[in-house]
């Protein structure tokens, strides 16, 4: 079944993995796992240099229809983040914004984060946030209530806090979750299906920090029905991201 991957990265990591062409690596993973669209943020932007990273990623993905992008924005750098969104969100390949609270050093309940999300909501329809605990998920749920047109994807589904984070997704119409995580705890997706339903779950891989095969192992291990797969692997993300067409299975 073809898939949309709502959480991937373009760039290098200081871990034992190949140092080769980042774009080719992502395209290879897309082909292997039938990922029709992979939405990336820049690892360089997240880890080190926002402007250079966003620019590098936009240049890299532009020739490849399969690769889409989030503009990385940083609550510690609000004017620069607004400029980045103004510059890149008009591009067809850029579908939303990405925030990493820890690596920007700004907590989710910090007023600066509220200010950044207001700016994102004024310009974008999709926001992916690195979310590894339930308290942050509730705070992001509150922001999502303020901006009902903004689909907020809670990346990593709260890590080990996924049950509570699924409850946030169940209670806020425009909050979604995806499960990429180095902790593939058995049963978490089945429980989330019971809490928030398949309509609130997307597929994210964290490629290529994690391998999509590793993340797909969680989804497939959850014993999804065909109808659930269709929603999780494609329909929900296609609707949120405004992507055309249903795939041929």
């Amino acid at each position, binding site marked *: 079944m073809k898939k949309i991957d709502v959480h991937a990265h373009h760039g290098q*990591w200081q*871990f*034992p*993995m*190949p140092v080769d062409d980042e774009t080719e*690596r992502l395209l290879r993973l897309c082909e*292997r796992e039938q990922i029709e669209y992979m939405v990336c943020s820049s690892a360089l932007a997240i880890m080190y240099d926002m402007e250079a990273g966003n620019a590098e990623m936009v240049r890299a993905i532009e020739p490849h229809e399969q690769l889409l992008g989030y503009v990385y924005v940083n609550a510690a750098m609000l004017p620069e983040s607004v400029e980045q969104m103004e510059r890149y969100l008009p591009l067809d390949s850029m579908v939303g914004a990405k925030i990493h*609270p*820890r690596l920007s050093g*700004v*907590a*989710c*309940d910090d007023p600066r984060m509220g200010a950044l999300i207001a700016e994102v909501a004024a310009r974008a329809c999709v926001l992916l946030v690195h979310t*590894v*605990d*339930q*308290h*942050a998920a*509730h*705070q992001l749920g509150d922001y999502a209530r303020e901006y009902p047109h903004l689909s907020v994807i809670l990346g990593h589904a*709260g*890590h*080990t*806090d*996924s*049950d*509570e984070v699924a409850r946030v997704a169940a209670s806020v119409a425009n909050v979604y979750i995806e499960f990429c995580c*180095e*902790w*593939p*705890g*058995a*049963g*978490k997706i089945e*429980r989330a299906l019971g809490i928030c339903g398949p309509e609130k779950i997307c597929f994210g891989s964290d490629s*290529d*920090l*994690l*391998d999509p*095969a*590793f*993340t*797909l*192992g*969680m989804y*497939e*291990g*959850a014993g999804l029905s065909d109808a659930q797969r269709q929603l999780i692997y494609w329909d929900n993300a296609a609707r949120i991201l405004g992507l055309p067409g249903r795939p041929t299975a």
Partner: protein
Amino acid sequence: MLIDINTCFGASPQRRVRKALHVQSARMCRPRPGLEPTTQDVDWSLDNLIRIMDEHGVNRACAYSLRGKLYDFVSGNDETLRASQLDPRIEPVATIDPRRHFGCLEEIERCVDNGFRLFRFFPDEQGWSVRSLPFMTICEELAQYPVAIMVPAGGWGDQTFLAERLCDFGFPIVAMEASFGQGAETAALTERYETFYADTSALNTADTIEAFVRHAGAARLLFGSDSPEMYFESAYRLVEVARIEPEQRDMILGGNALKQLLKAVGA
């Protein structure tokens, strides 16, 4: 032949999930009142482990008792032995907790007499250090027998310390659950020490498996799933999709465990 070197059974009283340290320290919001730490209903039973083995065609599973890890290693090892007698596909893995110190060496002898050839240690979860004399004393005792030891990848430097200190003992050392944070150390040690092996359960990417195979050889990787706590499919699919030769895949999925670990130690 599919051999899973990383499994367990028993019970867990807290039902609390293990959160990686880098994630714990990453909490980025004031705690909200009324939210309890997340619990996870894992079916830790031996029946469930056997069900997982049946479902995925696992021929042998190296399993330890959670009773041994969390409460009492003597009765836990007894429980593991009974499990292996109940289902011969269970390869018994003994646990020893150096914090008890007295009686540890006698338990090793008893376990070896009962057919255990794999010994697994949990310094992080039990709260002790591999750089301690009680643990080194245990390793000196284990060196008298045809056994292999399984230790967590642990903090940066722990694996190097173990490899350097234990390589002369000659027994196989398996680094368990190395993820991207410790993978480089595991990779370097598998390249350098012939007795050093890596469990695949947390390697996270097929690229990493391919790199291990290129640099250290396929013989140094042993498939593990960390069942029943983790989804079996996550670890399995990584090996399945890695761009390696079919015979290398077979080695990782079971051939190595059989030849380099179980047969080598007479299990």
